[in-house]
């Protein structure tokens, strides 16, 4: 597999999430990433972008998001960046009880990806995620 990369810049509207997620999955599929890995990457990406729009920008359109997807033989790397309200610390990602309505986003991100980190520098908040292709 050759290395491949795709970058996206888009407005903070929830209606843009599906297009970006589908494009990222297509990039994986076109580069022979198996279904299980591609599905996990898509879900983690959707959750991270949803969080960026709903929490980072409090659901407001008119702000920019950047997503970068890079893959090679060994892993798929995804970064999601926004310039909204940063988090004081990285969420733990614990699974809530089954009857709790919300709060599964970070749990899913952590379960889908092998490496997850969050940083906030100079007003730019970035989630980095990596799934190993083993």
């Amino acid at each position, binding site marked *: 597999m050759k290395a491949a990369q795709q970058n996206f810049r888009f407005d903070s509207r929830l209606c843009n999430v599906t297009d970006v997620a589908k494009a990222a999955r297509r990039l994986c599929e076109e580069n022979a990433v198996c279904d299980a890995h591609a599905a996990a990457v898509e*879900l983690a990406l959707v959750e991270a972008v949803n969080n960026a729009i709903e929490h980072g920008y409090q659901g407001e359109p008119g702000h920019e998001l950047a997503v970068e997807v890079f893959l090679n033989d060994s892993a798929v790397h995804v970064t999601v960046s926004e310039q909204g309200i940063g988090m004081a610390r990285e969420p733990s990602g614990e699974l809530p009880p089954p009857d709790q309505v919300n709060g599964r986003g970070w749990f899913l991100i952590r379960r889908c990806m092998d490496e997850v980190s969050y940083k906030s520098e100079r007003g730019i908040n970035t989630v980095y995620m990596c799934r190993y292709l083993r």
Partner: protein
Amino acid sequence: MNIAIRTINRRIVVALSGRVVVETAGDIRHRLHTLVEGDNRELIINLSEVDFMDSTGLSVLISTNERAEARGGKVSLSALPREIRALIELTRLHEIFEIFEDDLAAAGGPACVEW
């Protein structure tokens, strides 16, 4: 996202299709809550044509079940695609939903289908 409704053995079956995600969740939530808050507290949700679901989609299922249970009913899930079943099990939602292979099994026997 499409929503189709039919009746089997006097149980309402709601078939969702497409992506059940944050973008579509509001409409789906409204439709499902309206059903369980009417006379349909025993709801079967068929997910066979759902090709992607995120955590907001899961929230819609849970909140619908919560409302059904508050009225003495419940929500059952049927015909889960492999990826959706994996998501339900990963988040332990099989502990609150009964899951069936198909709508007939969920409706409890030989079918009298009304479209």
